[in-house]
């Protein structure tokens, strides 16, 4: 019993440490007014709409790969 005690103490300490780590890893929600960085041009999924349109067009015309991007077009040769 006596030999067990240090082990229990260490276990409790570890548990405490884990919960403290958990607290540190909690992410706070981004508030609506904290979206300044997300709103920057560099952060957009499509950085340049025109360029992305041109890329898509080349892809579909050179590789005959209609469809696969977006919803419409299934390779039926009608567009």
């Amino acid at each position: 019993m006596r030999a067990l005690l240090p082990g229990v103490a260490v276990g409790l300490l570890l548990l405490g440490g884990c919960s403290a780590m958990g607290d540190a890893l909690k992410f706070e929600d981004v508030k609506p007014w904290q979206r300044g960085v997300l709103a920057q041009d560099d952060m957009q999924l499509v950085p340049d709409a025109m360029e992305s349109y041109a890329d898509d067009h080349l892809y579909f015309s050179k590789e005959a790969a209609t469809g696969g991007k977006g919803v419409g077009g299934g390779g039926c040769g009608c567009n």
Partner: protein
Amino acid sequence: MNKLVRIVASLLMLAVLAPSSGLAAKAEGFTLQGRGAPVDLSAYRGRVVYLDFWASWCTPCRKSFPWMNAMQKQYGKYGLEVVAVNLDENRGLAEQFLRQTPAEFTVAFDPTGRTAEHYRVQVMPSSYLINRNGELVAEHKGFRRVDTARLEKEIRQLLASR
């Protein structure tokens, strides 16, 4: 039967009255840095305050500025005070915005966002109407051209009530 009718009627009355009295709490006070002197909300007691929360990166905010200028110009003499709280963490971005989009009304700066937290801002921009007694009476999320007529009507009603 008569009793039932009376209960239903009083419940209906409550349902009708509740929304109008629901928001009439005192508006949370604040003192923030302004473009010159500090901006203290309590200084506008007795006036109708259109409290707006904005940021430099927010596109509809930019659209709201000319309208807020117009409101301040038209109704300022009747007791309207447009107070626009900027929530940019970097004040330089706000100053840059103000150079491009002039504001002819009171502007305050809250880089901590604490006021927005108090007013539970959910979207950018958000605006609040505070009556002459310092009570929060209306909340508006976002800014759309189509809403401006209704907003202006609410402002006029508040200005008319002493």
